[in-house]
């Protein structure tokens, strides 16, 4: 059997917290090293943990694909980050429809409208309950 990754059944939220504090410590050094780069994202990243979504859960999702054998830590992180950006994007795009309906509450139908209208969300059609 290809090398399987067994992530221990540790509560993912706690793990993320642990990662977070360690990353903050490392991040301080990283921020100094990357002084020539913009300090904005780097500074922000040292205060938040880098990824809001638990990497272990993301990885479990990825591994549910039978074609996927191994995934580097970096790839799991990037997918987590991309998912975050995706959630932000779809929420904002759906909001447009709520506002058109003069509502301040985002509703399911706003999501459906956004999915139908926006090309990037075509892959979602027919996938949501």
């Amino acid at each position, binding site marked *: 059997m290809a090398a399987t990754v067994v992530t221990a059944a540790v509560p993912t939220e706690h793990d993320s917290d642990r990662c977070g504090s360690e990353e903050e410590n490392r991040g301080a050094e990283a921020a100094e090293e990357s002084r020539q780069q913009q300090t904005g994202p780097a500074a922000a990243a040292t205060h938040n943990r880098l990824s809001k979504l638990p990497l272990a859960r993301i990885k479990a999702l990825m591994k549910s694909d039978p074609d996927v054998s191994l995934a580097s830590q970096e790839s799991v992180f*990037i997918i987590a980050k*991309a998912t975050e950006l995706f959630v932000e994007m779809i929420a904002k795009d759906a909001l447009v429809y709520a506002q058109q309906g003069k509502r301040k509450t985002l509703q399911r139908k706003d999501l459906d409208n956004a999915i139908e209208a926006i090309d990037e969300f075509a892959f979602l059609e027919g996938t949501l309950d």
Partner: protein
Amino acid sequence: MAERPEDLNLPNAVITRIIKEALPDGVNVSKEARRAISQAASVFVLYATSCANNFAMKAKRKTLNAGDVLAAMEEMEFERFLEPLREALEVYKKGQKGKKEVSEQKRKDKEKKAGSDNDKSREEEEEDDHMEEEEPPEEEAEEEEVEN
């Protein structure tokens, strides 16, 4: 333990937080909308993974790497994500390198206590060279999420 994709949802609290931070104050999100967004996020992960995996397989690699994911984003027409993802990756990589250095340092300290003081500086240089060699990209393939 075999998890079905449907069972693996992302934590509601985190999804809610991401949504709230993306939207202006005063905007609410219905429970159904939140649930749908969470589901959509899971589908996104699966789709992105599958897409990225195609790139890895094309390159005859068994391990998905960051480059595959970035290529997938482009393929999925999410080019707008590329810039922020690259930036985040840089910070992440530095953080990971820092962690490795910390555990290397701890290991060195233990050895120093056992070894003699004269050999200290020589050992350090050798260890540093060692570290460079130990950090090729493929090293990321080692699946030990030590911190996780």
